């Protein structure tokens, strides 16, 4: 959560510094008009050179038998560390094509993830724990610094530096569309305000640890 907050603050600072530049304001709404929160918004472009962005240290924790955060977005050059903050072992795996991995992480240990290089502009990694069935985490690997999460009101802002043709994407692991992605083109001139109505109702419930099944452990 702190990492996530730092990321947001970092984004906001960036926005503030480029205040003279315009931004894209996006508001994502469900078909019933409610705000769709924690949807990842990112922008790619074939014509505009995207800035390289800064390298960040990303940490995906296993805490309270949950992946924390549930959704992690990173740039390909970022360093990713898995940290086990629980006092028991997790067996983290991914069957996602191109990023299959599987390793055990004992209590308190941490392990970095060696990402295989691919030509894709974005990759999705669905992670689970082979011990705790319900644990689920997603990692979105992007080749762009333009990404943001919608807040509780469905708002997100992308501080695009240059005008030009962009592709805007909405991603959420629970979207039922192919690759769980919705996209649209954007001809950006200084600023844009986009109200994006989803075609499906987003069921964004995050996994919850079902402690009931493990009450017997308390006796150890």
């Amino acid at each position, binding site marked *: 959560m702190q990492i996530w907050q730092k990321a947001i603050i970092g984004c906001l600072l960036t926005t503030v510094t480029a205040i003279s530049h315009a931004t894209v304001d996006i508001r994502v709404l469900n078909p019933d008009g409610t705000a769709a929160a924690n949807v990842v918004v990112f922008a790619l472009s074939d014509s505009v050179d995207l800035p390289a962005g800064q390298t960040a240290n990303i940490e995906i924790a296993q805490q309270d038998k949950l992946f924390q955060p549930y959704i992690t977005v990173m740039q390909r050059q970022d360093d990713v560390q898995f940290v086990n903050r629980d006092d028991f072992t997790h067996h983290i795996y*991914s*069957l996602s094509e191109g990023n299959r991995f*599987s390793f055990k992480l004992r209590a308190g240990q941490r392990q970095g993830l060696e990402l295989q290089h691919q030509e894709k502009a974005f990759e999705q990694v*669905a*992670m*689970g*724990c082979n011990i705790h069935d319900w*644990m689920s*985490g997603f990692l979105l690997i992007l080749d762009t610094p333009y990404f943001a999460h919608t807040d509780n009101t469905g708002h997100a802002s992308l501080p695009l530096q240059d005008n030009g043709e962009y592709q805007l994407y909405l991603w959420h692991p629970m979207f039922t569309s192919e690759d769980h992605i919705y996209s649209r083109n954007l001809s950006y001139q200084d600023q844009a305000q986009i109200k994006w109505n989803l075609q499906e109702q987003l069921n964004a419930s995050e996994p919850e640890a079902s402690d009931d099944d493990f009450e017997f452990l308390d006796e150890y």
Partner: protein
Amino acid sequence: MMRMNSLRTKVFISFVSLLLLVQAVSLGIFYQTNGSQENTQIQNRLNNAISTFHTQFDSRSYYLTAFAETAAKDFGLKQVFGSDNRSFLIALNNHRKRIEADMAIAVDNKGSVVGQLMRTDQSAKVKIGYRAGETFPDNNWFRGNNTTVSGLYRQNNHVYQLSFAPLRSGQRTVGWVGYGYLIDSRLAQQFAGITGMKVEFLLNSSEHDWELLATAAPETMQGVSDYGKQILSEHTLPASVGRHNAIDGIISTSTHIGFVDGMDLYAAIYGSRANLLETLRKNWWRLIVLEAATILIALLAAYMLAGGISRPVKRLVQQAKYIARGNYDTSVEIAESNELGQLAREFNTMQRAVLVREQTITHQLYFDGLSNLPNRNSLLQHLEQLFESSDAEFALVHLDIRRTKTVNDTLGYETGNQLITECGNRLNRLANGSGLYHLGADEFALIIPQADINTLGRWQQDIEQALDEPLCGDGTLLHLQIHAGIASVPAHAENPDKLMQKADTALSHSKRDHKTFLHYEPQMDADAGRRLSLVNDLKIAIEQNQLCLFYQPKLNLVSGRIHHLEALVRWIHPEQGMIPPDAFISIAEQTGQIDALTDWVIREAARQFNEWKKQGLRLCIAVNISAENLKNHTFTHELKQIWDDYELPRDALSLEITESAVVHDPDSAISMLCDIRDQGIKLSIDDYGTGYSSLAQLKKLPVQELKIDRSFVDKIHKDSDNQIIVRSTIRMAHDMGLTVVAEGIEDAETLDWLRQHQCELAQGYFISRPQPANELIDWLATSEYSGVEDTVSNA
């Protein structure tokens, strides 16, 4: 043998009828319920079969699903999913083998087959179906689904029961792992084994086109043709359940299993009706055997029960016959406390009661109720016994107590009975308790054994002595006086009847002759015969003037002259000569001829009075009248008629009546006598002192004259007691204004004594015996008592 109408048969038959009825009803009810039970059972069987099938089928589906889920979570499988196809197929097959699944399949989330292993029957080897990368033909299985799915799946004309579970990476479904079983004969057999019914799985490709997938039959139905298509084409509803009547002996149902490739999969379930109902049939047989056994036992029980009821009844009938025959010795014993036992006890009680009553009746037959002495029947019995010995020698004394009628009339029957009882007691004591018989009323009989004259004499004395002491009855001293007739055996009779008759004759004579004891004499029988003929002759005698009057004078003791006569009737029988009045007057009284006789006597006396009157003689005539005359209400009138007819002066005739005649019915007699006196006719009381008339009665009697009985007068100069009686009687009569006549004067001393004591008239042999009218006149003319004229003028 049982007779048709006997109680036993009736009980038996009604018992058996009832039993059969109950059995029939129970069988009927059982049959009816069994019929509906049969239907219910069939229906239940069919319903059970269907629900069993679905349970089986669903549990297989669940089993497959659970297994698919487990396999999908197997990390080994996961790791090689989509990366190493060979390894993945091996892992997939390893899982398949664990449950002997007929199909194992994995599909990725794009709908491409990752691997498929399958076999078309149980024994066949496992082959690769779709290869990796081929598209799974039916994407509908997974669309919009994130959990397990189950259903029917058809491939190469084989239908599988298939379940898929999602293979996930974390939350994301990356593919599906599925396992399936064939719908084949294995399933059919399993089901047939459980339900005991044949099952066919049929797929309808078109309306009339049925494809048989698999069939199986339990052992009991081997060789039964396949009816599945027929059943399903006739069942209109997909899952209808019901009895199938089109096929004989088959009950069937069908159920819809599911859809596959747009076709319906059905299960047709059927069984032999006979097999199904076998248990029920067995029950039937068992019931019938049971009923038969029950009936048999019940028949036996009924037979014995009927016997148990009728046996005591038979014994009671036998006992009743005994009692009817007079056999009281046997009693019936029925050791039961029920009604029959009670009846038997009542029977015995009745028997004893009958016996007692019979003894009482017998006693009454042979003993007198009053004195409890043996009666006439006993006497006859005893006499017969005595006569049986040829040399029997004994005497029979027939006794009769005197004046019991008078005692009964005056002192009441209680006193009379006391008199009789006391007499019986005394005689019985005398006879030492044997030989005395009470013949009834006041009659007794005494048998005196070995009776010669001396013995009899002693007996007579003893009897008189025993009865001598007076008896006090109702405040009155009563003298026990008797008459007795004695007859002896062998002298007088040769059988009991004769003997009793003779004794009775002797008794009658003793009464007539006022004797206490009288021995029978053959002469008595002659008298009795004569008496009998007199009864007939008397009527003729009155009509034919065979009667005549004798006259006995009454001497006037004051004047010494005779001017009064007493008329005494005589009967000169044409054959028997003179008959004394005692002999026929009683007959006249008893035969109702006394009125005629009295009428004749008064008219004759009147005629004679008038005749003497013509001759210048005035002789008043006293006529005796009977007590019977006083009962005739017209008697007064008849007297008046006579007086008128003969134009008699009032005193021409006077009437004499005995004291005892008045005693019988004093009131009416006195009233009658008053009437007579009022006519002016003089009345005289005869035989005074022999009756029981009281002075009170005498006072009331309207008589002018009193005749002292001869028993007091005879030889009065020698008897001081009689002197006292006569003297006082004369004085009393005089005081009451009556004249006194003394009769029975047989000597001069008596006449003198009477004269001295102021007796007015005297009558007796000493003066004159009774004489016919003409002789009397002659005698009077020559006697010292003549001088009638004077007397007449005095009268």
